[in-house]
């Protein structure tokens, strides 16, 4: 058995998939794993690290889009962007392996765009599960994310997501707020999405964030926060008070980043 170790990113895993095909060992004799996986080395296995190669990654992405369709490609990317806790990693199949075998199955099928419907297949089921968990969090954050207006009029938001959902969020808010300058800062991954009025967005690594800059709010900011708090409290019906249901609907981990529940 040959084991390819690839980086835990879209480019990394796609490079791994490319290498697995190119090596011609046969799909049954080869296995992918991510470099941060918690597995111990096995006897009678040959390990090889696959470097990230943007060119290979692009080729795989093009093939997936052409043969499996845009939707499947999108779901696979979402699955790769899912973040897992150690416990989940131990319990479940490795992400890279699931993606690799799903791609192999999809490309061997007559109608590749159907591949994610084959939920009877354990690899597909795993990709489906990962994509769903990342997609759910992204959808939550579309609502739970809060912008604050900084002194210079820029909207700033700080989030702590489990999955790497920044691209999905940025896409949504560029469409929604085209004439605003905004920054969404993922503090867990130290990356930010930056958007300038009337243009697209870009993702940037922010190893050292300027805390002071992020806390200089505009004059009006406090006023609207107060108005929002007022609204938030008066809209609740006392006779139906139900903190458990509230916690179930907006899980506690999202609370610190909101205005009304922090």
């Amino acid at each position: 058995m040959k084991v390819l170790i690839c980086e835990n990113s879209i480019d990394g895993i796609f490079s791994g998939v490319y290498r697995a095909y190119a090596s011609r060992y046969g799909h049954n004799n080869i296995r992918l794993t991510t470099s941060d996986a918690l597995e111990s080395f096995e006897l009678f296995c040959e390990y090889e690290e696959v470097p990230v190669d943007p060119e290979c990654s692009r080729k795989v992405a093009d093939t997936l889009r052409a043969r499996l369709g845009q939707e499947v490609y999108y779901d696979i990317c979402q699955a790769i962007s899912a973040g897992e806790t150690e416990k989940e990693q131990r319990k479940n199949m490795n992400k890279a392996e699931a993606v690799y075998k799903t791609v192999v199955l999809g490309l061997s099928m007559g109608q590749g765009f159907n591949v994610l419907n084959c939920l009877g297949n354990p690899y597909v089921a795993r990709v489906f599960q990962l994509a769903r968990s990342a997609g759910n969090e992204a959808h939550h954050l579309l609502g739970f994310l809060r912008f604050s207006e900084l002194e210079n009029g820029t909207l700033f938001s700080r989030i702590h997501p489990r999955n790497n959902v920044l691209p999905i969020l940025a896409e949504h808010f560029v469409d929604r707020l085209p004439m605003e300058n905004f920054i969404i800062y993922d503090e867990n991954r130290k990356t930010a999405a930056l958007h300038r009025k009337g243009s697209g967005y870009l993702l940037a690594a922010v190893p050292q964030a300027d805390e002071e800059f992020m806390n200089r709010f505009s004059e009006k900011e406090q006023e609207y926060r107060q108005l929002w708090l007022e609204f938030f409290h008066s809209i609740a019906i006392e006779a139906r008070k139900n903190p458990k249901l509230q916690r179930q609907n907006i899980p506690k981990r999202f609370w610190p980043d909101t205005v009304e529940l922090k």
Partner: protein
Amino acid sequence: MTLMKKLNILSDAAKYDVACTSSGVERGGSGKGIGNCIAPGICHTFSADGRCISLLKILFTNECIFNCAYCLNNCNNDVKRAAFTPEEVCTLTMEFYRRNYIEGLFLSSGILISPNYTMDLIYQTLYQLRYVHGFHGYIHVKSIPGADPVLVEKVGFLADRMSINLELPTADSLRRLAPCKSRNTILKPMRQIQNSIDASKQELALLENRLYPGRGELAHWQETPRFVPAGQSTQMIIGATPESDFQIMSVAERLYQNFNLKRVFFSAFVNVTENSDLPALPGGPPLLREHRLYQADWLLRFYHFKVSELLSEDKPDFNIFLDPKCDWALRHLEFFPVEINRADYYTLLRVPGIGYKSASRIVKARKQSVLTFSDLKKIGVVLKRALYFITCSGRMMYNTKLEEDYICRNLMGDKTQIPREIRESGYRQLSLFDEGMIAPDSSASFQKIIGV
């Protein structure tokens, strides 16, 4: 009066309106202006009662010339009154929307001076929001009963969803509790909105058919105004009047069929006016009853059930201990067990524990391979409910009996039958009943618990 004070009074006055959904319309941003809509809607936060906050839900004013008995703002009540100006509503909406607090605006109103005067104020607000501020987010607006059809039409082209509250399930109750409203002033505009929605859809469909790749026509199609694109909804109050669940659900079914409504909302009655015509509810609002009605509403809209299958004159109320689908399945054991690998989609929909999403996943997945129970679990089927009713390749999951009593006893052990939020907020009386009392005729104990 400060904006803060107004917001306090007018959101407090709006809180008994149920619909806070932002779903039903998909609209990309315009590249200028602000806002877009996505079809499933987005919840922005959840208030202390656990209900979703998606829209800025406010009344334009809580002054009112009507005297509906159940309403806090009726003209005989001594409450603080306030009114926004259109500019204030626009500023609040825009600033909240920019900060991603809300998905749009929900604007309702008490009746100031006359229905037409109020409706015109609402129209002005919406017009400013759409054309002065370039707002493309979601707007849900209440149509004022008795307003001129021309005004309703004009507002409809600016809003995404319109609703007119049915308030109470029967005309009798309405006459008794809301003497200024009548079935006629409610159903007539409802019909008008339905007709305008249809006309608008047809116009768009015609344009679409004529569409040549020429750019001018596409732009024309895109710019054609849409009338209430997210459809209309309504709501009624549950528990203020003596109607049975059967009557309520039949009304809802007729509204879906005849008026093509997107949603019918139910609101558990909260006694705020202490009017002698209204029931006192010592046990709090009838939340479990509301929950069962919503479950049944889902069965109508997504599961192809009919009200006549769920309830009848002889059995007019829902079982409090079991959800309507389980209840139906137990009374129709002749349909079961269902073979997962062969049964058609509509049969799968009727199995307790299989939702419409899992049903369609099953139908797709079994084309590729034979499904087993562990696959079903991954697909999202709730096996603890479904296992009594299904087979995979001819085998049941465990050795179970297809008997009403046996399955009923086991399903009752499933704690999700009575949702946690209700179980833990004052329905502890349930533990007083022992299992023997769970006879099909539970309407007496039902009424005791919900306090009708």
